[in-house]
């Protein structure tokens, strides 16, 4: 069966529209009718990766691909990249600017939160080469 694929553009530094893409992802997943708990986890990951692009990413795109057995969310950007991926997964570690932290973002919980909510995460990034995050969710455990 061919999959449904959608993409959402994210602009760097655009805090006014930040979160719109993940809300659309959430609404698409709801229309398809997945288990609410899986939708919740996927939306949190979409939101965290969208905020990462807004804060560090340069411009980027989030791709949503869905099947009846799984959901994949991919976030790509051409921004500053991640120097030490292992460190970025540590709770509280943040490279966010002070002004972002004053807005209540950049608490160093982005990637840790993604790891907690996705069934598997792959990160491909190096300094100044942009970032690619692949988040995978199994959906078939509640739909036999």
């Amino acid at each position, binding site marked *: *069966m*061919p*999959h*449904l694929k*959608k993409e959402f553009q994210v602009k760097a530094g655009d805090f006014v529209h930040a*979160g719109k893409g*993940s*809300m659309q992802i*959430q609404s*698409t997943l*709801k*229309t*398809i*009718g*997945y*288990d*609410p*708990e899986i*939708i*919740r986890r996927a*939306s*949190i990951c979409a*939101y965290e990766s969208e905020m990462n692009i807004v804060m560090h990413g340069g411009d980027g795109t989030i791709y949503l691909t*869905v*099947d*009846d057995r799984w959901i994949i969310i991919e976030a790509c950007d051409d921004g500053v990249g991640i120097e030490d991926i292992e460190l970025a997964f540590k709770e509280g570690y943040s490279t966010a600017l002070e002004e972002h932290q004053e807005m209540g973002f950049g608490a160093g919980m982005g990637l840790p939160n993604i790891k907690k909510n996705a069934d598997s995460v792959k990160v491909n990034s190096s300094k100044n080469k942009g970032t690619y995050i692949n988040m995978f969710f199994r*959906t078939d455990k509640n*739909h036999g």
Partner: protein
Amino acid sequence: MGNTAKESKPFVYVQIDEKLCNGCVLCMKACPTKAIRVRDNRVARIQGVCIDCGECVRVCPRGAIKPIFVQSDEIEKDIFSIVSSSAVLYSQFGGDVMPNDILLALKRMGFNLVYDQGYTNEIFNVAVELHIKENRKKPDAPWPLISPICPVVVRLIAYRFPSLLKHIPPFLTPSEIVAREVKKRLSAKYGYKQEDITVFHITPCAAKMISMREPVLQTSSYLDRAIGIGQIYNTLKKNLHELTEDKVLHHSGGVGIGWGMTGGEIAGVNANCIAVSGISETIRYLEKIEMGLLHETDYVEFRICTEGCLGGPFTVADKYQAKHCLQRLVRMFGMEKRVKYEYVRDLYETGWFFTDQEAMPLEASSSYLSVAENIERQKRIDEVLQLLPRKECGACGSPDCHTFAEDVIDGSVSIENCVFLSHDKDKIRISGES
């Protein structure tokens, strides 16, 4: 999921007068659940899940849409009649009329018993505080909790945000608690059968009726009839002028009275709370909660009407003037709760506040499809959407291009109904939907 959900019933609680409706698109555009269509016969019709928010009633420039309500001549027929009222009623007659006068005037209208609900509101506030404290001890409790008071918000959650149902404390609303308690006490004291007692509730809310007939949070309502404030306004006003009695019926303080306006409920809750009102803000905040963004907040008071219940479709006074009036009453009666904490805790522990039913999602028709079928459907919808101009004009009779694409795929309308595409036959042929 499908088999546990309540099926949406065909009964709709608003009526569209076909003689007055000219088929404009305002109600269709305003409907938050996209339940209205304006098809070939040029009259608006309701076909989806109605949450009875009253938006269509409010926007209709011709007064063609009316909620279905109890007729006021039904009041006299009952053996024993009790009336309770939303605190909004206290704000409808200007600054000189006191709550007690209004309650006395209600008594003059022939109700056997008039009950001031404001006091129960204050008790309810304490129960919410207890519930917050209890849940904060549980590691996996959902946050924030969501007020169960606004019936439209509850239905909106059951329909569009079912994952948030567990955020609603399983509490009966104060008007339900009042109805249950007075019925219980009267039948114990005077030996009336419970079914011979009729509890009326005076309300500014267009959704009260639906929340009584098909409650989401309980199996059946203790309230028997809803009366819109506008329906009894003139009779009540006449009785207000003729008052001679001097009896105290009003007991609540400012906390209970303040419930009529946005922020009024949470003013009585000592915790980290926010109040949100208006339909678009409510939806925006529910989306935020669904993404886990507000988990540090304890309790959110949502009211679908702007400014809270004061802005309900059945009010008579202007909502901002009514607010001024209510704020004055709140100052006059004071913001200290006059409820004994220990007394409420005992009630809470015996389950006095709790409902008898777990909230169930209300589902739209597409949710009966399997996930695979829905993905297929979404893809076809996207294909149609690619052809549409995205002007969101509503001239096709569907509220926006996306909903039109859904309607085309579901077979309820032809793609030729798009006024832009009908000039562009080539595109229609490519889509194969003509």
